[in-house]
C-alpha cells in the first residue's frame, strides 16, 4: 500500500502540468488528492497502529542479495509523521491555490514539484530500508531546490536554491556514508533491524557521526543553518510546508529514530545537545533582529528545530515523549504563522514589520489566528505549545544526564525566553500600531482558513490534551520502546517545570519590553562570524580552487591529458607492483617455435606502424597484427576468439578503407604538442609496466578459477557444450545485453555523425551554387 500511495503521488505529479493547462491554479486542489489519500490511509490504520501498538510492514523484494528492498513500515511514530506531512500538506495545497494569483505562470510545474515533494516526504517517514531512506531524503533536497527556485528569474532565488541544495546535498552524502557504515556493521540494511540491534565499535561511532552531520544540515543546525533563512526566497506555501512543517524535520526525524539506540555513545549527548542548544540560542537571537516577518519566522524555525534536536537527542524515554509532543505543536503553530504571513504579503504587498501597521483592524481573523499560534509558540497555557514545553522540562529533569542535563535546561530556558520575545515581536510588528494610511483590501477568508484550522487544533489540543494523548504516547513508544504511557495534561501542580516556564515567559516579556535597548545593543555588538558568510567564503574558495586546478589540469590538449593519465597509471600501481608485488614462482616457458614466429611477426608489424607515413600502410600493418593475434588465439585453445578476431579484422579493414578513401594518403605534418622523445619514453614505460603486470598476474592466482564451476554447469544447466557461448548468452547474459546496447549506441552514433556530415556537404554545395 505505501508503494501505491507513492505511485499515486507520482501519477498526480505527472498529470499536474497537463491538467494545469485547463485548470490553471486550481490544479493545486486536484493535487491535494494525493496527500489527502495518504492522510485517510494513515487514519484508517490508526486504530491498529495507535490503539494496539502494531506496525504495518510492507516488504517489496527488489535485489535482496544487495540489501536493496522496498521495505516500508508504518509504526505509530511514522503514522504521526504521515499525519503531519500529508495532513498539513493537504491544507497547504488548498492554501497555495488561493495564494497564487490566477495569472501565475507555470503553476502546473510548481504543483508537480510540490506533489513530488509530498510523496518523497511520505516515503521518507515510511521507509524501513536505509538506502530507501537516503533516496527519499535526497529527493526532498532536490524538490526543495526546485521549489525554492520557483521564481528562477530572480538571482536571489537561484542562489538560495543552490545554497540549500549544496548544504543539504553535502549532508545527504554524509548521511549515505553513515547509513552504509552502520548497515554494514549491523549486517542488515533494514532500519528497524538496525535500531533494535545497534552495532557497536569504532566504525559505528563514525557512522553515527556522519548520520548526525546529515541530520544537522537538513534540520538547519548551527553551523549549517544559513540555507534555511535564505530559502525564504521561495513562495510562502513552500516555506510553510517544506521549511517549517515537514522537510526540515527530516533531520529531527532521523535523530529521533537513532537516539534511543545510540544516545549512550560517549560523544552523542555532548554533541547533539551542544549543537541543539547553540542553534536554539543563535536562531532566537537572530530572529530578534529581523524586520521581514517571514525571515523572523525562519530564524524562529531554526531555533525551534534546535529545541527538537536537543529533546530527541537526549534519547531518554521522557525526553522522546516531550519531543514528540513538540513536533506536533510546532507543525501546527508554525504552519499557521507562515500561512498568515503569506496572506498578509498577498493582501498588503509587504512583509516588513516596519511598514505594516494596524492590520488587526483590517485582518481580524488573521490577527486572532496569529495570537493563538504565537502564544502556542511562546509556550503559554492553555495551548499545545505550553504542554509540550512543560513535558520538555519534565523530560530533561527526569533523566540522569550528567552535565548535559543542566546544559539542556539552561538552553531551553534561554531559548524559550528568546522565543517569547520574538513571538511578541512578530504579533506586535505585523498587527499592532495605528491604522495605516494605505488601503488594505478586505481580508480574504480563504487565505486564512487553513491557518485558522491549524490554530484551532493548537487550542483544542491544549484545552483537551486527550485528543492527541493516545497518538503521542503511541508514537513515543514506537520511537523509544522504554516509554510507558503518561497522560498529557495542562496542570501538573506547582512543579519545577512550571517555575521554569514562568521564568522563560517573564524573561521574554522583559526582553520585549526593553526591545529598543536590545536592538541598540544588537546593533552595537561586534558582528559574530555569520554562517551565511561562512557559506559564501567556502563556496568562493571552492570555485577559486576549482578554477585554478582546472586551469592547470585541463589545459585543453588531449594528448597531454592522456599522458598524465597513463603516467599516473604506470607510476602509482607500477610502484606498488615493484615494491609489493608477489613476483611469481611459476615456471616460465619461452614458447613454441610457432608461437615465437607469430609473436615476432605481430611485434614487428606493430612497431612498423609507428613509423608508417602513409595511412594505408598503417592500416594494412594493423591487419597483419590482428591476424597474428587470431593465430595466437588458436594456439591458446580459443577457437571462438580466433574466429571472431578473423572476422572482425576483415570487417575493420573494410571500414578503414571506406573512410580512408576520403582522407589524404599521407599523415599530416603538424608539429605535435608533446615532444617525440617524451612520447617514446611514455610508451616504453607503459610497455614495461604491462610486461611486469602480465608476469605478476600469471603467478597471482590464489583461488581456483571461477570458470571451473562454469565448466561443470555448462551442460546440465546451460544445455550447451560450447562453454564460451554458454557464458555469453546464459551465465553472464546481462553483460552481453549491456554490450549489445553499446553496439547499438555506436551504430546510431555512426549514422548521425555521417548523415550530419552529408548535410553540411549539401549545404556547402548549395552555398557554392549560390556564389557562382
Amino acid at each position, binding site marked *: 500500500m505505501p508503494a501505491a500511495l507513492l505511485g499515486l503521488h507520482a501519477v498526480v505529479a505527472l498529470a499536474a502540468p497537463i491538467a494545469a493547462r485547463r485548470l490553471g491554479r486550481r490544479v493545486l486542489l486536484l493535487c491535494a488528492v494525493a496527500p489527502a489519500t495518504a492522510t485517510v490511509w494513515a487514519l484508517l490504520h490508526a486504530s491498529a497502529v495507535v490503539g494496539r501498538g502494531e506496525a504495518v510492514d510492507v516488504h517489496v523484494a527488489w535485489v535482496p542479495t544487495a540489501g536493496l528492498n522496498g521495505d516500508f513500515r508504518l509504526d505509530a511514530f511514522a503514522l504521526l509523521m504521515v499525519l503531519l506531512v500529508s495532513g498539513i500538506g493537504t491544507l497547504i495545497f488548498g492554501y497555495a491555490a488561493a495564494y497564487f494569483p490566477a495569472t501565475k505562470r507555470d503553476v502546473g510545474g510548481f504543483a508537480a514539484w510540490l506533489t513530488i515533494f509530498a510523496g518523497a516526504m511520505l516515503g521518507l517517514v515510511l521507509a524501513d530500508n536505509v538506502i530507501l531512506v537516503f533516496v527519499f531524503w535526497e529527493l526532498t533536497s532536490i524538490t526543495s531546490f526546485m521549489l525554492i527556485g520557483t521564481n528562477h528569474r530572480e538571482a536571489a532565488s537561484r542562489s538560495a536554491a543552490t545554497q540549500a541544495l549544496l548544504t543539504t546535498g553535502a549532508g545527504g552524502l554524509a548521511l549515505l556514508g553513515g547509513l552504509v557504515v552502520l548497515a554494514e556493521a549491523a549486517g542488515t540494511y533494514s532500519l528497524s533491524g538496525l535500531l533494535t540491534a545497534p552495532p557497536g565499535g569504532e566504525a559505528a561511532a563514525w557512522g553515527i557521526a556522519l548520520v548526525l552531520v546529515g541530520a544537522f544540515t537538513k534540520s538547519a543546525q548551527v553551523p549549517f543553518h544559513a540555507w534555511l533563512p535564505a530559502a525564504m526566497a521561495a513562495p510562502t506555501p513552500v516555506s510553510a510546508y517544506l521549511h517549517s512543517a515537514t522537510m526540515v524535520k527530516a533531520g529531527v526525524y532521523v535523530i529521533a529514530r537513532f537516539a534511543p539506540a545510540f544516545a549512550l555513545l560517549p560523544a552523542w549527548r555532548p554533541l547533539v545537545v551542544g549543537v541543539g542548544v547553540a542553534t536554539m540560542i543563535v536562531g532566537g537571537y537572530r530572529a530578534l533582529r529581523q524586520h521581514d516577518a517571514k525571515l523572523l519566522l525562519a530564524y524562529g524555525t531554526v531555533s525551534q528545530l534546535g529545541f527538537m534536536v536537543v529533546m530527541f537527542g537526549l534519547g531518554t524515554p521522557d525526553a522522546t515523549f516531550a519531543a514528540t509532543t513538540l513536533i506536533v505543536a510546532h507543525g501546527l503553530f508554525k504552519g499557521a504563522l507562515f500561512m498568515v504571513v503569506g496572506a498578509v504579503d498577498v493582501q498588503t504587498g509587504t512583509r516588513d514589520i516596519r511598514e505594516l501597521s494596524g492590520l488587526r483592524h483590517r485582518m481580524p481573523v488573521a490577527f486572532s489566528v496569529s495570537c493563538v499560534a504565537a502564544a502556542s509558540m511562546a509556550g503559554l497555557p492553555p495551548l499545545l505549545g505550553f504542554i509540550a514545553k512543560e513535558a520538555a522540562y519534565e523530560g530533561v529533569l527526569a533523566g540522569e544526564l550528567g552535565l548535559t542535563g543542566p546544559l539542556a535546561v539552561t538552553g531551553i530556558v534561554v531559548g524559550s525566553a528568546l522565543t517569547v520575545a520574538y513571538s511578541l515581536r512578530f504579533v506586535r510588528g505585523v498587527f499592532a500600531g495605528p491604522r495605516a494610511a494605505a488601503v488594505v483590501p478586505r481580508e480574504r477568508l480563504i487565505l486564512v482558513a487553513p491557518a485558522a484550522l491549524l490554530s484551532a487544533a493548537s487550542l483544542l489540543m491544549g484545552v483537551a490534551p486527550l485528543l492527541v494523548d493516545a497518538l503521542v504516547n503511541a508514537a513515543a513508544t514506537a520511537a523509544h520502546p522504554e516509554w510507558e504511557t503518561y497522560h498529557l495534561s495542562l496542570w501538573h501542580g506547582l512543579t519545577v517545570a512550571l517555575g521554569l516556564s514562568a521564568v522563560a515567559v517573564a524573561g521574554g516579556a522583559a526582553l520585549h519590553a526593553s526591545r529598543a535597548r536590545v536592538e541598540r545593543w544588537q546593533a552595537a555588538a561586534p558582528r559574530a562570524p555569520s554562517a551565511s558568510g561562512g557559506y559564501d567564503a567556502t563556496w568562493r574558495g571552492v570555485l577559486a580552487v576549482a578554477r585554478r586546478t582546472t586551469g592547470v589540469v585541463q589545459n585543453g590538449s588531449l594528448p597531454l591529458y592522456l599522458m598524465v593519465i597513463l603516467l599516473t597509471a604506470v607510476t602509482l600501481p607500477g610502484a606498488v607492483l615493484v615494491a609489493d608485488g608477489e613476483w611469481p614462482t611459476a615456471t616460465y616457458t619461452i614458447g613454441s617455435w610457432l608461437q615465437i614466429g607469430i609473436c615476432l611477426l605481430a611485434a614487428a608489424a606493430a612497431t612498423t606502424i609507428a613509423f608508417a607515413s602513409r595511412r594505408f600502410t598503417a592500416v594494412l600493418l594493423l591487419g597483419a597484427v590482428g591476424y597474428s593475434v587470431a593465430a595466437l588465439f588458436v594456439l591458446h585453445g580459443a*577457437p*571462438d576468439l580466433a*574466429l*571472431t578476431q578473423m*572476422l*572482425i579484422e*576483415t*570487417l575493420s579493414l*573494410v*571500414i578503414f578503407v*571506406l*573512410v580512408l578513401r576520403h582522407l589524404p594518403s599521407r599523415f599530416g605534418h603538424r608539429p605535435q604538442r608533446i615532444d617525440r622523445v617524451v612520447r617514446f619514453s611514455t610508451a616504453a614505460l607503459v610497455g614495461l609496466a604491462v610486461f611486469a603486470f602480465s608476469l605478476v598476474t600469471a603467478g597471482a592466482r590464489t583461488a581456483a578459477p571461477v570458470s571451473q564451476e562454469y565448466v561443470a554447469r555448462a551442460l546440465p*544447466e*546451460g*544445455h*550447451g*557444450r*560450447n562453454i*564460451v*557461448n*554458454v557464458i*555469453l*548468452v*546464459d551465465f553472464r*547474459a*546481462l553483460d*552481453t*545485453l549491456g554490450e*549489445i*546496447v553499446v*553496439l*547499438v549506441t*555506436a*551504430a*546510431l552514433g*555512426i*549514422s548521425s*555523425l*555521417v*548523415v550530419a556530415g*552529408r548535410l553540411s556537404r549539401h549545404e556547402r554545395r548549395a552555398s557554392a551554387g549560390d556564389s557562382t
Partner: protein
Amino acid sequence: MTSLILETGTRAVFHTILVFSVFLLFAGHNAPGGGFIGGLVAGAALVLRFVAYGSQDAARTVRARPETVLGAGVFAAAASAIAPWFAGGQLLESRLWALTLPLLGTIKATSVLVFDVGVYFVVVGLVLAVLVTLGGELDS
C-alpha cells in the same frame, strides 16, 4: 568500380554465406560459433554485396534498414531476458524445451537461443549501419 567477376561470384556465394551464418548461430551453443560470430559472417556477406554491386544497388536489394535490424536485435535479447519474470522465474533465467516433431524427431531448444538471435541481429545491424553510412557513394 563494380566488376563482372565479383558480381557473379557474389551472386553465387551470398546466400550460401548467409545460410552458413545462420548455421553458425544455431550451432554455436555446442560448437564454435554463436550470435557474435554468426552475425559477423552475415556482415561479411553484406560487405561483399555492397562492394560487388555498389552501395546504391545493394541498398536497393538489401531492403532492411539498419535501425530496424538493430531494434529487432535489442528487442529480442531484452525480451528473452525479461520473459522469465512473467513466468515466475528470475531475470535471464534459461529454459530448455524438448520438442518431438514429426520427421525430425526430438529437438532440444533453449530459451537463450532467442537471446543469441538478438545478438546476431545487433551485430548485423551494426555492420549494415556502417555500410549504409560510410559506404555511401561506393560507386562514385
